[in-house]
């Protein structure tokens, strides 16, 4: 099966999944107490029946549930995520505004955690049983046990407040109007703490996985074959063990994409990162259904995208998958 057809079939499945998510979450959200019209009226400072009725009508909340659902799903089918009356803008616009920040954060965290996790995992497995291995595995366990938001708070406290090395929140220095390289550096500085705290937990996960996987693969027969060929230890690790050991790590990384995107909600909150996670959290309190649903759909799409990417990576690394059918 070629990669193209893989993507095609995955995309088709993804489409069905997203549709299901749209329907289920729509039902879920509408089960929630809290009438968006009342909330919005409340926020406007004062609300009377007339105003709430107006708002209901405008939201289409006066229509039967199935009509609302049908309209929503119909819209989603045409890539229309609806309109946020609270924010007074199309949901897709709100999300597109915030999406780059989230993508930047999650991708950076993903890359950091994967690269560092694999690197440390390989290093630990090469020194198995020695003090440096114990140190690395203990650290990984600690990271693994540390609540993300707490790590974030402590990081802000230490690196931003006490040491003053890095900005503790936000996406860029507002109003500095940096351009070009200066802006990139500015954003990068702001990115360090959130990406690291989000990435550390997953780094620990990948490190442990890599280490275990390296040790397991190193017991396999072909490693003995490689030794019998007269290859050196590092060459065997690099050429034979790592390539095989990385496959389960890649699979895991794909499966954990959902957690990563979910973790971004917390990170974005603590670091005031203007991404879709925060958008969702804020919209939730206001029962801004359309926006929450939109964020759900987009983040689910992100997860699926992560999965497809890891799938493709897997296929590129492992020749067996493509040929199986």
């Amino acid at each position: 099966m070629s990669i193209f057809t893989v993507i095609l079939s995955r995309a088709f499945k993804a489409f069905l999944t997203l549709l299901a998510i749209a329907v289920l979450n729509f039902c879920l959200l509408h089960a929630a107490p809290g009438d968006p019209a009342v909330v919005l009226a409340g926020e406007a400072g004062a609300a009377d029946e007339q105003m709430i009725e107006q708002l209901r009508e405008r939201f289409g909340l006066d229509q039967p549930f199935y009509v609302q659902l049908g309209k929503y799903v119909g819209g989603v089918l045409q890539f229309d995520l609806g309109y946020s009356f609270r924010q007074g803008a199309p949901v897709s616009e709100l999300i597109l505004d915030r999406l780059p920040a989230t993508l930047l954060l999650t991708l950076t965290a993903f890359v950091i955690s994967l690269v560092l996790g694999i690197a440390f995992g390989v290093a630990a497995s090469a020194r198995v049983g020695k003090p440096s291995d114990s140190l690395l595995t203990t650290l990984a366990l600690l990271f693994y046990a540390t609540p993300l938001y707490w790590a974030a708070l402590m990081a802000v406290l230490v690196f931003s407040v006490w040491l003053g090395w890095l900005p503790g929140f936000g996406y860029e220095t507002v109003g500095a109007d940096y351009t070009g390289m200066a802006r990139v550096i500015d954003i990068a500085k702001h990115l360090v703490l959130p990406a690291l705290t989000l990435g550390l937990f997953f780094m620990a996960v990948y490190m442990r996985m890599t280490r275990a996987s390296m040790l397991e693969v190193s017991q396999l027969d072909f490693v003995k074959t490689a030794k019998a060929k007269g290859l050196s230890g590092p060459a065997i690790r690099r050429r034979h063990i790592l390539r095989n050991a990385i496959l389960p790590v890649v699979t895991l990384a794909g499966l954990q994409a959902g957690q990563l995107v979910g973790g971004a909600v917390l990170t974005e909150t603590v670091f005031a990162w203007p991404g879709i996670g925060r958008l969702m959290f804020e919209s939730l309190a206001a029962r801004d259904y359309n926006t929450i649903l939109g964020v759900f759909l987009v983040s689910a799409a992100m997860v699926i995208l992560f999965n497809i990417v890891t799938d493709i990576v897997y296929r590129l690394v492992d020749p067996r998958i493509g040929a199986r059918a």
Partner: protein
Amino acid sequence: MSALSIEHLSIGLPQGADRAFAVEDISFAIEKGEILCVVGESGSGKSMTANALMGLLPPGVTVKSGRAMFEARDILRLPEAEKQALRGERIAMIFQEPMTALNPLMRIGEQIAEVFAAHDRFSQQERRDKALTLIREVGLPDPEKIIRAYPFQLSGGQRQRAMIAMALALEPKLLIADEPTTALDVTTQAQILKLILDLRERHGMAVMFITHDFGVVAEIADQVIVMREGRVVERGSAASVLTDPQHEYTRRLLDAIPTGKLPPARAPREVPALEIKGLRKVYRTGGGFFRPVREVRAVDDVSLTVGRGEVLGLVGESGSGKSTLGRTAVRLVTPDGGQVLVGGTDLAALSEEELRKQRHKVQMVFQDPYASLNPRQRIMGALTDGPITKGFPKAQAQARARELLEIVGLGAEAASRFPHEFSGGQRQRIGIARALAMDPELIIADEAVSALDVSIQAQVLDLLRDLRERFDLSILFITHDLRVAAQLCDRIAVMQKGKLVEIGTVHDIFLRPQQDYTRQLLAAVPGADWAKAGAA
């Protein structure tokens, strides 16, 4: 001067192992161009010896004393860097499992060329050319394609050839082959053995060939040593060891080997215990939106009968469909067509619910003694689940179970124990008792002795022979090993690619085979000539 000479080698096992030494004070030598077979059952220390020579001992296992002189150096005491330089260049090794011994993610060509890279020989282009030459030499078809293929695209025999190509790459002086043909079908095994013999001729290297199979010894050995529990118990030329074994253990091993000696023919049985008519089973894989469906005809219109009190051997190579046939006969697999008549009932046509009530009629003894018993269930449970479901009172079922355990030679107290407390051979006995507990009309033994060491194998075969007399059992005995089949069976059916090739009495099949394929199989049996000589 010998190519390799091992003197008083002892290899220590880590603490907590079942014995202190894997190998204790062994000495032997291999001459240039000579093939030395190291024979022994599992745990004899033969593989450890090979690993020690390659410097590939697992962690915790160490050389305690002795030396191994190779090219005037003690290779056991070399620094790691020199050992590394030696490996692959002066001493090469091939392994038992061709399926796992190759890196699944690397092309065959790369893996061969890697040998040159490891020893820093030749340019990229030269490496590739050499790899092509090697692939050609080991007789792999279409070298240009093979070089770009991944291991999973090759058959077991082809992979073993690729392994051999790798081993030959730098013209080593010594080749260590650790059970290289054990995992292969007979015909493939014969080809690989021939290849090794050829290569030895052409390159004049010494070969240390590790095997458990005296048939293989007969095919290729110049010299033989027999090992048992870490010690050498017998040594000598192949001819003398095979024909005139000195040590009692060697004799036992040789006796245990199913020879071509055919048992006296028994009268054919008229009453059928099992009738299979036009059985078909097709496996379909893939399918879905974007995938084509692939079909494999595992069992293709097969009809045969097992008479009451008869043992029918079902022989074939891997992929011949013999196991599928067996599993279809007990309706673990539902056939696509045809009938499976047991005592007049067509098992293939029953509904799931009706089938459960008829299950007891056909029982099975499985191949893997470690997987065929539930590790979380006591033996008593395994033996009484069936009878109790069938309707026997619990006490009666338990009494019967104890009795059967006595009969298979384990003793009634075995009932209260868990499977992990038993050895492989004992577990297989439990499996047989379990089958008997259901009082079946037919027993299907699916490679029931294949996973066992030779001497254990012989004991289990003895037991089966005994039980068969005692209970007048009808058995469908599935095996890949013609020699085993010959020992137990009244008739033999040969399968190939889902089709029944030939069926006849043991004497007919062995002495008057009608089909080319049967003849090929017979010819490929290792030590066939020697066995025939012995039989004569």
